[in-house]
């Protein structure tokens, strides 16, 4: 079993090693015969909350896979690289990972980082034939990555934001109590693409729904959401769709609760760090919905067991069932190709069908390297501890699974014109 995160090694030994390596220029010559995965996400600063959980998830998975013998006779090893949520820094860390012998990098936080990494991997592979690097994306949801900017070297396990909206609107379609929808989103690429696709899809599926507001507010700059709430209130909306996360989500919800705004909240990231705490504070019991690929309180026994083990080990929710799909499929692909060569593994991943973490079959579409799987809609509130054992962030409240959106209802066409080597 090999798991390492540089920070866990001795500081001086590392400094000394770095110094010696610097002096002798043999930084990369220490490659061992493991399948190294460079995990490139924020491990310091504000973004570290999610980045650290992600790293733990991958470490958990590496242990699981290595216990089963690894893949193609080799053990896995994940090395964490701190990208400080900064695209440029991510490229530096990717270079470091590759120099340390990683041929697979994985990342999830921030579409800006993801776009930079896709571009970098494309150029790196073009300029370094024979040393191809694969980029496995577990959480960056900008649709463009599997559409206009799709790459043979990039695979995505998280549903992109269009797919999520497709699933969400398919769920909303028969709900006749939804009449007036208000959109409020952060003013950056994710929020903008979400609002655009929400308009299109709602119009197509529920032309009777009136979109009474479509707001963009600056990213992580708003302290007081009361004026926005006043506008939502004035519009007479009964439903709000938002992609807000972090404090933009928490403050929005708190201001709404303070003002006594009574609407249903359809969200992407209510389950993100701090989200459950904020919902509990506002007392919005089962008023906040989220669309994900699986909830801790899902029905599958195996998934619940893993959730339990994960929580026991790391004292944290397993946010990334998709990382399980990613790593398990990677092992399967390496076994299938019987090689760790980037191009061969990529070819093995294409069109691979796989039994996903939360049950049901998923598929890595060959056309755009987007993974499709059943999606789930749930609400957050009080739970029946007997049937729903997992609460979130120690609030006593948890996610209740309300509906499953079948694979076919999540499928969307792609504009990707895949260039294969």
């Amino acid at each position, binding site marked *: 079993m090999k798991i390492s995160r540089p920070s866990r090694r001795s500081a001086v030994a590392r400094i000394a090693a770095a110094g010696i390596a610097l002096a002798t220029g043999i930084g990369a010559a220490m490659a061992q015969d493991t399948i190294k995965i460079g995990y490139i996400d924020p491990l310091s600063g*504000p973004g*570290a*909350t999610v980045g650290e959980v992600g790293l733990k998830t991958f470490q958990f998975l590496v242990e699981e896979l290595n216990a089963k013998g690894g893949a193609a006779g080799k053990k896995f090893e994940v090395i964490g690289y701190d990208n400080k949520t900064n695209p440029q820094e991510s490229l530096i860390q990717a270079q470091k990972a590759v120099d340390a012998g990683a041929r697979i990098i994985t990342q999830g936080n921030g579409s800006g980082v993801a776009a930079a990494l896709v571009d970098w991997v494309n150029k790196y592979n073009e300029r370094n034939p024979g040393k191809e690097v694969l980029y496995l994306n577990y959480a960056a949801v900008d649709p463009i990555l599997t559409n206009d900017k799709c790459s043979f070297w990039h695979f995505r396990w998280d549903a992109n934001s269009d797919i999520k909206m497709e699933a969400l609107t398919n769920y909303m379609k028969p709900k006749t109590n939804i009449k007036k929808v208000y959109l409020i989103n952060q*003013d950056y690429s994710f929020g903008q693409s979400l609002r655009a696709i929400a308009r299109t899809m709602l119009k197509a599926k529920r032309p009777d729904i009136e979109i009474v507001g479509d*707001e*963009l*507010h*600056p990213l*992580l*700059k*708003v*302290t*007081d959401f*009361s*004026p*926005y*709430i*006043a*506008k939502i*209130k*004035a519009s007479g909306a009964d439903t709000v769709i938002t992609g807000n996360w972090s*404090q933009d989500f*928490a*403050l929005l919800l*708190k201001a709404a609760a*303070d*003002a*006594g705004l009574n609407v249903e909240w359809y969200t992407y990231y209510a389950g993100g*760090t*701090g989200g459950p*705490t*904020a919902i*509990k*504070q506002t007392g919005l019991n089962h008023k906040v919905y989220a669309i994900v690929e699986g909830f801790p309180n899902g029905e599958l026994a195996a998934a619940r067991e893993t959730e339990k083990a994960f929580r026991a080990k790391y004292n944290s929710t397993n946010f990334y069932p998709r990382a399980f799909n990613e790593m398990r499929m990677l092992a399967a692909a390496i076994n299938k190709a019987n090689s760790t060569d980037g191009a061969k593994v990529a070819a093995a991943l294409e069109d691979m069908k796989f039994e996903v973490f939360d049950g049901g079959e998923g598929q890595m579409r060959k056309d755009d390297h987007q993974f499709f799987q059943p999606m789930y809609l749930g609400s957050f509130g009080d739970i029946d501890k007997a049937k729903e054992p997992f609460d979130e*962030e*120690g*609030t006593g409240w948890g996610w209740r699974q309300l509906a499953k959106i079948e694979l076919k209802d999540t499928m969307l066409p792609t504009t990707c014109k895949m260039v294969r080597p």
Partner: protein
Amino acid sequence: MLELVLISTLNGVLYGLLLFLMASGLTLIFSMMGVLNFAHASFYMLGAFVGYQISKWAGFWPGLILAPLIVGAAGMLVERFGLRNVHKNGHVAELLFTFGLAFVMEELVQIVWGKAPVDYRVPALLDFPAFTLFTTNYPAYKLFMLAISLAIFVGLFAMLTRTRIGLIVQAALTHPNMVAHLGHNVPLIFMSVFGVGAGLAAIAGVIAGPALVTQSTMAALLGPILFVVVVVGGLGSLSGALVASLLIGLLQTFAISSNASMADLFAFSGFSPQPNTIMNDLWRVSVAQIAPILPYLLLVLMLMFRPTGLMGNRES
């Protein structure tokens, strides 16, 4: 329309007073010591976290009393063992010292309380809607925030202008030697002022913590806007800071309630820029979208045309 105007005004005033609450300590330290304290928002954050910690053990109210005292003491230590030593190198060195301090404090808070938001609750005593204005509720806690802000303004103003302490402190800034000769302990005065400033920041933290999000990023997110308040109001002017806070609160709130863009304004002209040009971006952006950056525009314009700020009397 009347509804939106009334509610926006009320929201603007509430937000403005919250800003003042946060900025009062900053302006106090600047007016007394001439130090632009970059770590002010960090003391605010520290106050929120210490208040949260105490609230877990003993409830919100002890936190409101104790957290400012603890943070104030921490502020005094910072002045005694840090700031005082760089004082001889001038105000830029002092400013840089607080700049570095902000880095360190954020990391320390992350080590102790983690990076995720903590569950800091509004006290049960104030957790009810105080009144309803056209179907919009106003929680009692917001009125409490408003009352505290005003109390701090009145208290500070009275202390600075009506008491001997205020006079001595003001004199110590301009004529430290003279004041020392009169038998006052000037270093102690500066240390106390810094402590009070940090304590005020902590009060703001304890009060805003439950209403907003108590997280290690709260300092970095708040920092710049406080400078806008203090600079627009006039560096070191307490009344200026109050006026500027209200101005910024109202400006932002009303801007958010407007969806107008250049495209709407000039719709009659029939002009429409080419898509995918900078002109088009500018044409379509709404007032609401740029609302949160308006304070910075105000800052730049103010400094260019009236560098002393609204009510300040010195430039730097």
